């Protein structure tokens, strides 16, 4: 069986450049990799690291301004791809090499039925006729666990959920049994529950097919759970290459160490320790540092790092590009000493503080337009019940974390509280005073007290205003700062969010994503608000930048005694920052507790599914597999009884379908709304307990 272990892909010395203006920008330099059958190889990096470019180069599919430099070698099944013509590649693409792309919605043709989109690849590369191709398509749909595969053939992509679309694409790429599969961030656009299912699927299918796979991602958790080997890219160069077990247990490169330290682990909270952020930002590929590309951000950089470090092999099957890897390996230098203590105000959340925001019976229903048929029959179609009776409170100076899948209503809830959307019913009180419906009806002092940080700083900052101008408005209008004091205030705000005062004159276009989000945070803090709503504030940022922003949020909260309502799909992030936690499903809250309740049972069965779905950055952590079947139901057609009963792994029986579950209380302030008793849940959920990670 020696032939079996021959590598599917052998990449050596791969360099790729893009022509920008008149210059060739080297996006990937000296990339190498060897993928064996049945192996999943992770390619990890932040945006701009060249990970997607490397994948595109391997497939020989670069944009018109890209070129593979001479000397690069991509051997696929023993054949060099470099001299192959486009026509020759067309016989390899789809037949022996498949791609599962990042954005499943955009990757399917919107006006062709999904069955045909899969069948056409079979007709192209196999001798199957129309009927046989159709049959094989149904079989593939079944293998990727799509329900009702026959009916699916004639559906259009927009009729499917994101998870279903991604399964269609996986079915498509595996239909011809290719030898190599490239997966380019295939789960980044999906919910964590869906992601977990897709990852299981990929793992099993790759094992069954014996194909080699390259998994491109920014998520170290996914790598830990899925891959056998991993290569870490930074600014277009390999920093480190190892088996997953070695990389997570004993990283050798300061960048890898920095990345691993910057991710909040499940179980870690802001009171334990500040996250270890990597300072600075990745270099522009057009102006790479002369020596080690990571040296400007590296806390261990010394004189020698101004020269280019070679790619060395500390052991068989390991690569590292660092002058000081031996010292790191021997433990002579460590990044740990840079670790900061946690937030000083580390009083445990035992003592409740006064309620700042109180939301009572809040509902938001979006009416559905009546069609002709409804009018003729005198019907009123069911509204979209996005938020359907929510009660919650945020205490002074505390963080309330809000989690749930997309479609759970968490963003609508935030928009109603901040006043961007009118509410259907219920009350919002801020410091005991009733808050009217929309921003239009609220007075200046309420606006000043309630601020928001949005998910995407790209869109939430006006590109035509300088940072200073963006900060000036809330300072004058809401904080009533005297005109001659405004400039000083702008400088103070920028310093607070760790930006130099010169940034006041810059436009958002000149800033990186992390810097923009800092400006957005400074703007939210300008009016010295009592409460800031943070809607996924770090989810669009790179891992190394995310940590710094989370630290910033924690520090500003401690300094200003500000409350946060913090919405995130990333449970580790919420667990890190939140004092209290609320879990929302289909417009209703199913669990209320302390942030740390995320890490030990009992949970609501839905929370349990969310927790166990997280791909954890620890290859040894084999969390119990609680996988939800199906997608979240439509908020127009909410299940009766417990809304979660259609997907619940711990369903009791008919009672769950008929009766709303009661709130159960463990006496310490942890509430779960379930038909099962808390001890019952705790017993069933032992396997999902999160052991302490360091």
């Amino acid at each position, binding site marked *: 069986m020696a032939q079996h272990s021959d590598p599917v892909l052998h990449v050596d010395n791969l360099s790729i450049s893009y022509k920008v203006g008149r210059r060739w920008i080297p996006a990937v330099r000296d990339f190498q990799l060897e993928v064996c059958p049945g192996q999943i190889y992770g390619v990890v990096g932040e945006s701009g690291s060249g990970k997607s470019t490397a994948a595109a180069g391997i497939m020989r*599919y670069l944009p018109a301004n890209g070129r593979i430099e001479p000397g690069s070698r991509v051997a696929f099944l023993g054949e060099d791809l470099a001299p192959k013509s486009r026509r020759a590649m067309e016989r390899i693409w789809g037949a022996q090499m498949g791609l599962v792309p990042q954005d499943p919605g*955009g990757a399917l043709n919107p006006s*062709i039925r999904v069955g045909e989109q899969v069948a056409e*690849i079979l007709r192209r590369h196999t001798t199957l006729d129309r009927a046989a191709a159709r049959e094989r398509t149904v079989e593939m749909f079944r293998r990727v666990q799509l329900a009702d595969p026959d009916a699916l053939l004639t559906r*259009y992509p927009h009729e499917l959920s994101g998870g279903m679309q991604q399964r269609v694409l996986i079915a498509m790429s595996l239909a011809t049994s290719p030898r190599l599969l490239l997966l380019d961030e295939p789960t980044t656009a999906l919910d964590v529950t869906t992601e977990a299912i897709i990852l299981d699927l990929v793992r099993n299918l790759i094992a069954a097919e014996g194909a080699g796979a390259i998994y491109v991602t920014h998520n170290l958790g996914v790598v830990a759970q899925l891959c056998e080997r991993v290569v870490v890219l930074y600014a277009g160069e390999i920093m480190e290459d190892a088996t997953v077990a070695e990389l997570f247990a004993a990283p050798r490169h300061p960048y890898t160490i920095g990345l691993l330290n910057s991710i909040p682990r499940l179980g870690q909270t802001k009171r334990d320790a500040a996250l270890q952020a990597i300072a600075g930002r990745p270099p522009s590929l057009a102006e790479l540092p002369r020596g080690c590309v990571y040296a400007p951000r590296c806390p261990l950089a010394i004189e020698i790092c101004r020269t280019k470090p070679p790619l060395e092999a500390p052991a068989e099957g390991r690569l590292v590009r660092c002058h000081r890897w031996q010292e790191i390996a021997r433990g002579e230098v460590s990044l740990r000493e840079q670790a900061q203590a946690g937030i000083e105000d580390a009083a445990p959340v035992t003592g409740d503080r006064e309620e700042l925001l109180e939301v009572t019976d809040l509902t938001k229903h979006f009416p559905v337009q009546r069609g002709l*048929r409804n009018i003729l029959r005198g019907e009123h179609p069911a509204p979209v019940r996005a938020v359907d009776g929510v009660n919650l409170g945020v205490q002074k100076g505390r963080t309330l974390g809000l989690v749930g899948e997309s479609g759970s209503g968490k963003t609508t809830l935030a928009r109603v509280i901040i006043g961007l959307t009118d509410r259907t019913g219920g009350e919002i009180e801020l410091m005991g005073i009733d808050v009217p419906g929309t921003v239009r009806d609220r007075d200046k002092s309420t606006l000043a007290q309630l601020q928001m940080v949005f998910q995407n700083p790209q869109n939430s900052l006006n590109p035509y205003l300088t940072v200073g101008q963006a900060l000036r408005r809330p300072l004058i209008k809401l904080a009533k700062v005297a005109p001659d004091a405004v400039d000083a205030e702008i400088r103070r705000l920028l310093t607070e969010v760790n930006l130099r005062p010169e940034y006041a004159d810059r436009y958002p276009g000149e800033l990186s994503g992390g810097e923009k989000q800092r400006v957005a945070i400074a703007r939210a803090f300008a009016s010295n608000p009592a409460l800031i709503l943070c809607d996924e504030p770090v989810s669009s940022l790179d891992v190394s930048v995310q940590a710094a922003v989370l630290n910033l949020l924690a520090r500003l909260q401690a300094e200003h005694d500000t409350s946060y309502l913090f919405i995130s799909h990333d449970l580790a992030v919420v667990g890190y920052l939140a004092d209290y936690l609320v879990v929302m499903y289909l417009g209703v809250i199913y669990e209320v507790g302390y942030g740390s309740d995320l890490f030990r049972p009992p949970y609501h069965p839905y929370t349990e599914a969310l927790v166990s779905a997280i791909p954890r950055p620890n290859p040894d952590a084999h969390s119990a597999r609680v996988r939800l079947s199906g997608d979240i139901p439509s908020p127009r057609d909410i299940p009766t009884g417990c809304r979660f009963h259609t997907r619940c792994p711990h369903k009791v029986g008919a009672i769950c379908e008929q009766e709303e579950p009661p709130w159960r209380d463990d006496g310490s302030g942890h509430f779960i709304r379930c038909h099962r008793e808390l001890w019952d849940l705790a017993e069933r959920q032992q396997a999902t307990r999160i052991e302490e990670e360091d």
Partner: protein
Amino acid sequence: MTRFILRRLVFFVLTLFITSVLVFALTRILPGDVARVLLGREASPEAVQAKREELGLDKPLAVQYVNWAGDFITGDWGTTYSTPREDIRDLVIQRASNSARLAALTLLIAVPLSITLGVIAGLSEGRFADGAISILTLSVVSLPEFVTGLFLINTVALGWGDNPIADRLGWFPASSAIRADASFSEALPAMWLPAVAATLVLLAYIVRLVRAGVIEELKKGYVRTAVLKGLPYRVVVVKHVLRNALIPTVTVIATSTGWLISGMVVIESVFSYPGLGRLLINNAIDNRDLPLIQAIVMLTVAVILIANFTADLLYALLNPRIRLE
């Protein structure tokens, strides 16, 4: 889908009603007494009064409108004021069918040509073919129709006139003044040049639209998926890209049919082609022939509305995201 069609139909009827009121009001607001216009300045007041009663002009406006609209719907469009007093319905329908022929021929030339050029330009964005096609079509569209029309007459009709093939076929006559009731095969030779002139007007619009559509669709993720399925480039373009890129184009073509049938006043005049546009200018407006103006305008409105309705329908049919809502 049915809901979509029904809504469009209601909209269609409503628009037609509003325009009919406007057209009716217009002829009544205009200064001058219709009866006097008809009878001439010398007519006696009694004769004028009698004529007014005959025409129903003494009744309230609402009644007059209902009578007029009722007659129009039942097919009684009246006779022309100017002599010889012809039946308006026969006259208008005959001219309209001439216009429709010309429109059909124009579309037959313009659509394949402009889509081909647009796709070539889009696929070769920023390269020579793209530049050449864009410059060519844009410079043609900047010329008014009477210039291109006269140019075609001068070069093709007069310049190539001695060409034996053209002679044999009788193609490219300098004047397209055919008998209004000529059969299609009789009319065809005379229609080539006006059709080419109209094509030149449409060409740049459609080419630009197709080009933009192709460029936009080529950037979409599904194109990468299709290429990396190993499909030949031709299949990627024809099966995957064009299906989406041509959706806006199809609706614009359908909409432009309205203009082709009723708006080619200049081209019909330059080539003396007996279409609806020339009927409006030469017979109706020049003679202040109100019933004729009304009939032509109403027909024009109906044609344009039907064209837009068809465009909406096609858009929905081609776009599954709308079709299923």
